[in-house]
């Protein structure tokens, strides 16, 4: 069992029982039942390890374990790798055959079409037709499925901005594979390993050394997950805003065009809490004249999730809606005109309901685009 590797941590949780993970868990807030909180799931994990729980209940356990956006809030408020333990719990359930059908649709789509949305693979590269890429560049721009299929114009802007900053990149076009994040987070680890090997080979053949992306989910999958499954994967992985923030700090960029906006910034879980990229977006926003940044109560490591991650969208749409509503209420309460984020999944999720709120949605790259000469 994958959970065996985390036995000490699970017992430490059982020993401690502090419950500091509960209150900020977006799912526990909605469900108000201990079994949905991380502390509860740690006892369930122990029950499975020790054979206390009958297998006849595993199907229901899988539903509860899948009712989680793997936002990492429980881990940030703890000292144990709770997000990893929860994913291992999912992996064990999948191994035993307790597979969510909706997850499977997305995973099969990755295998067949290199995206989890059952859309045509060829459409992924439409945005890049008029953009010149450098086949010789050691930097690969990895577009990601969500951006490629739902926010293609954004991608074009991202690449143009980087070009203005003197960064030329390679791009795989319709050969770009899916990172397989859904496979990992939903516990389909055998398939994930196959996806990694395939992706690593493709990347290797291009001769690149660095992967740059705008998608926090892809960033974290490449940066933090791939190497755990496959040591050969040793590429440097960067988020676009890491590059831009560094250039600001080095004095290589100075924004002169004012962007007069009152904004609040939503830290995407995969970028902020889970990847530790918290200062960079703020360095950028503070460098743009005219921007008034009003922070929400929950930011950085304590940011609240939008609900889109962990495959939750596929299993409980209503729950995701409630979680994103809660975050949007917090954003609206700041009195900001715009909610700014930098994650296509957060954006996709907020996009559906933001019309109900007195706030508009923007990607941080949109603001950079407005500010850059």
């Amino acid at each position, binding site marked *: 069992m994958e959970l065996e590797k985390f036995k*000490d941590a699970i*017992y*430490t*949780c*059982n*020993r*401690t*029982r*502090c*419950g*500091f993970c*509960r*209150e*900020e868990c977006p799912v526990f807030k909605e469900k*108000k*039942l*201990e*079994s949905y909180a991380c*502390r*509860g*799931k740690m*006892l*369930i994990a122990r*029950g499975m390890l020790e054979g*206390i*729980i*009958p297998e006849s*209940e595993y199907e*229901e*356990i899988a539903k*509860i374990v899948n009712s989680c956006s793997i936002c990492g809030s429980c*881990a*940030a*408020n*703890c*000292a*144990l790798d709770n997000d990893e333990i929860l994913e291992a719990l999912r992996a064990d359930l999948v191994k035993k055959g307790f597979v969510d059908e909706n997850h499977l649709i997305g995973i099969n789509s990755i295998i067949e079409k290199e995206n989890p949305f059952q859309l045509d693979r060829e459409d992924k590269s439409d945005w890049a037709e008029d953009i010149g890429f450098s086949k010789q560049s050691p930097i690969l721009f990895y577009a990601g499925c969500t951006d490629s299929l739902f926010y293609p114009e954004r991608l074009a802007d991202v690449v143009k901005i980087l070009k203005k900053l003197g960064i030329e990149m390679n791009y795989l076009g319709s050969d770009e594979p899916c990172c397989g994040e859904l496979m990992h987070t939903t516990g389909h680890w055998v398939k994930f390993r196959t996806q990694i090997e395939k992706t690593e080979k493709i990347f290797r053949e291009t001769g690149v050394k660095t992967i740059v992306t705008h998608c926090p989910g892809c960033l974290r999958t490449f940066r933090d997950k791939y190497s755990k499954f496959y040591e050969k994967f040793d590429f440097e992985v960067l988020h676009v805003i890491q590059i831009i923030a560094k250039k600001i700090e080095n004095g290589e960029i100075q924004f002169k065009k004012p962007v007069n906006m009152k904004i609040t910034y939503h830290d995407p879980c995969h970028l902020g*809490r889970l990847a530790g990229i918290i200062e960079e977006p703020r360095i950028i926003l503070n460098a743009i004249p005219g921007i008034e940044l009003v922070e929400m*109560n929950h930011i950085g*490591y304590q940011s609240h999730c939008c609900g889109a991650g962990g495959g939750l969208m596929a299993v409980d749409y209503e729950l995701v809606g409630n979680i994103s509503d809660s975050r949007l209420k917090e954003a609206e309460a700041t009195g900001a005109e715009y909610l700014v984020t930098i994650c296509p999944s957060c954006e996709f999720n907020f996009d559906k309901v933001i019309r109900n709120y007195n706030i508009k949605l923007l990607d941080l790259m949109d603001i950079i685009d407005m500010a850059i000469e």
Partner: protein
Amino acid sequence: MFNKAQIQQITQKLREELGADRVFTQVFHRLVYSRDWSPRDAKEAYLPDIVVRPFSIEEASKMVKICNEFHIPIVPYAGGTGMSGASVPIYGGISVDMKGFDEVKEVDEKNMTVTCGAGITILRLNEILAEYGLWFPHDPESKPASTVGSAVACNNDGTFAIKYGRTPDFLLNAVVVTGTGQILRIGHRKALVSSTGLKLLPLFIGSEGTLGLVCETTLRIYPLPKTRQVAGILFKSINEAMKALQRLLQAGLSVESAHINCGRRLNFYTHSFRLKHNRDPDIPEWADAVLFISFNGDEDVVNFSKNYALKVTKELSGEQLKEEAMVESWWNSKHTGSFIPFRQKWPDSQREKKFGAADLGLPVGRIEEGYKRYLEIAEKNGLEILGMCVYNEKANCISPSISFAVWVDDKDPESVQGWWNYIKEMSYMAVDLEGTMSTYWGDGQFRVGYNRYEHGESLDTMMQIKKIFDPNNIMNPGKKFDLKELEKIDFKIEKKPE
């Protein structure tokens, strides 16, 4: 204990009355309600037979009435952070998850009260109150998980109690469901004092779920203080530190918090310091006690108070702790909770052994004696000493509530047995030193049987009172009172004539 057919019958009835989404019988749901924060054998798990999650007082009342029909135990479960096993269903029965009662019904700014469901955590309540510039100053370290209801049911400790008191000082009114299912409003609405009737609120404070379910509370609240200053002062002994604190109060200072740690305990409370600086804090060898104090209020008053406190304590041989990072580390631990992300103290410090503490109340003049006895008793029972911390839990006076902590190896049955013996011997010691066995975690599971050493015949009177609220002994059996003793007491409610 109930057989499968009986549990099925009770479950069916509960589902009919409350709805299927309120009642759970799966092993995995039951397993998660099997433990609290108390030290116990790693393998020990008491599963309830059924988990019920009511969302309204009426639902809670219906549930209790059904349980009365079947005489099945009810064990309230809120934050699950108790250290006494109070929320552990040792006789099975029903675990009631009180988190459904988490609504803030009214923030009354004019009368400075808040009315809220008892299942709201103290942290969340304060987040909401902060939007109004208000504050509920009851501040246990467990506040991210522990609820207002558990502050009532366990009468737990708070960092700011030396200025604001604790639950008896905050709780103005409550709506409870008694052990018969009766819905009772008790207390004095939004008035702070009352002389009419008999006082039922104090009976529920510290009742540990043995009388009924606390579902709704009205609490006294305060304006958020504008500023705060914190300081640490070293002393040669606990006694010297206590005397200095007494002097500060005598001088007329309004001290917001006052904790006295022995040298060993300080190590535990400087977890974040050690993580950050990769070394132990620098404390002179002569120092055997640290008095941590805080002041809140307007800047001028706070500055004056801190400076005056430092001047007075210096005259009494106290030396200010220069290492600010250590004071900050203690304050993080006790109040702000702003630990390094992913390195929160509680699980990080519990990887091998479990924190366990006796929570005695001793008269101020006998603390030093109690400290010596603690070292002996811990050693005798083979427990590693973690150190002592003296809290002060009554407003504006020296009011020691002392945590005598040890490490318990929950993988070793001998160590767990040592812990049980330790708590018992420490409890006897407290009574012998003219004090009390418990000041913040209650009797729970652990002190049943020997709390008579403190209460004598009064315990019989307490049991008779319990019978008024809970004639069938279904409310949290095995906690506070010995179930067998309770069953000997004959008490019947006269039914009203038709």
